[in-house]
């Protein structure tokens, strides 16, 4: 079973040279640590940055320079700063090539829920609804099974939706999946040591398994 870093490491393989990438809060942020040498990407932060760099050294934090998670960060050479409307402009117009974000639930037709648990948690959607509605290429990083042992791969999301029919790929602690255009979680790779049987038990929605599914290489 993969831990958070394992999921991030596997997703990093989806990041290709020349891409502009938006990373959400949580596991997606960790992806930046595993992008291979020689793969040049530009990280976008929706509060208005292209070319986001690592955290600053102690003592060099700048209150005016934060990312969308409100963390102090640095800028890389060639970076640019812009306002929030332009930031979502480049997301909406699909100049940003890849969006990686977390989810609480995903449905077999690619719906995603990640912003609200009615009566319990209402923090708001931030930029998630804009990102999922516009991005051509969306990868979701999530836990397939919650702490109570219930699957979060559902026939239909139970929580309020963030977006409909938008998720293309999902990486979890158990495997890599593609959302089939006809509906269903198509298993592409198994996490090391995980069997198809275990994956079946962790999938409440329609699971598609074709032939021998390889174990992932990370």
């Amino acid at each position, binding site marked *: 079973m993969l831990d958070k870093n394992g999921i991030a490491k596997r997703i990093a393989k989806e990041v290709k040279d020349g891409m502009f990438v938006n990373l959400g809060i949580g596991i997606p942020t960790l992806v930046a640590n595993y992008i291979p040498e020689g793969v040049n990407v530009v990280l976008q932060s929706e509060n208005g940055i292209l070319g986001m760099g690592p955290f600053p050294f102690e003592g060099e934090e700048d209150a005016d320079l934060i990312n969308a998670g409100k963390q102090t960060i640095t800028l890389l050479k060639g970076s640019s700063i812009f306002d929030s409307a332009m930031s979502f402009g480049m997301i909406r*117009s699909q100049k940003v090539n890849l969006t990686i974000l977390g989810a609480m639930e995903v449905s077999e037709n690619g719906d995603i829920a990640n912003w609200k648990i009615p009566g319990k948690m209402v923090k708001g959607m*931030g930029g998630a*609804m804009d990102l999922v*509605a516009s991005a051509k290429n969306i990868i979701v990083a999530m836990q397939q099974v919650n702490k109570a042992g219930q699957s979060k791969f559902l026939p239909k999301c139970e929580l309020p939706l963030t977006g409909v029919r938008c998720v293309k790929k999902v990486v979890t602690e158990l495997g890599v999946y593609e959302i089939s255009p006809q509906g269903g979680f198509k298993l592409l790779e198994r996490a090391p040591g995980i069997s198809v049987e275990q994956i079946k038990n962790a999938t409440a929605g329609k699971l598609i398994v074709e032939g021998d599914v390889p174990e992932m290489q990370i």
Partner: protein
Amino acid sequence: MINRVVKNVEEALKDIKDGNTLMVGGFGLCGIPENCIAELVKKGVKNLTCISNNAGVDDFGLGLLLQTKQIKKMISSYVGENDEFERQMLSGELEVELVPQGTLATRCMASGYGMPVIFTPAGVGTEVAIGKETRKFTFNGEEKEYLMEKAFEADFAIVKAWKGDTAGNLIYNSTARNFNPLMAMAGRITIAEVEELVPAGELDPDHIHTPGIYVHRIFQGQKYEKRIEQRTVRKK
């Protein structure tokens, strides 16, 4: 040159009244108009509607106006990290309208551009779309459903810039730009507080982010705290 300078924060906010709608710039605690928020607390104006991406933290930013229960309604995209906010929202004391962040930004921008509505794909098929008109458009080679969202109108926009001149021209610093230039364009009256106020002519016209036409009042801000919400560092 038309002089936009007012003496101080008291004069800048003199006619803000109970029940007004205010746009407040900033992202998290970054680029927030600290002086104006402190003055609003002092003035004690109530029943405010605030359009702001976030609601501050418990003891800073718009959180200060929540503590004193001066805000009736918040229109925001993300309101985590604020216990008092959550308490007031769940108890029904505070009205909250959550808006996707890009929609929020663009509804401010549209206002400053004189466009009454925008169409965006964000929120289609979610509870954000309830009661709103949708239309199908083919754009970028793809037919998709778009949601019609109205431009925001506000009695006052309150923004913070790094430098400003006496003509009201503004320049922001780094990511403290965020929503500030968009809201600056959208207020019926726009009030700007700046870290450094200089005479007209000292800022390069090519470097202006917000032209002074949008800024009705500008003043030299005092004692910026610039609090950091998530101090993250690495070791040397």
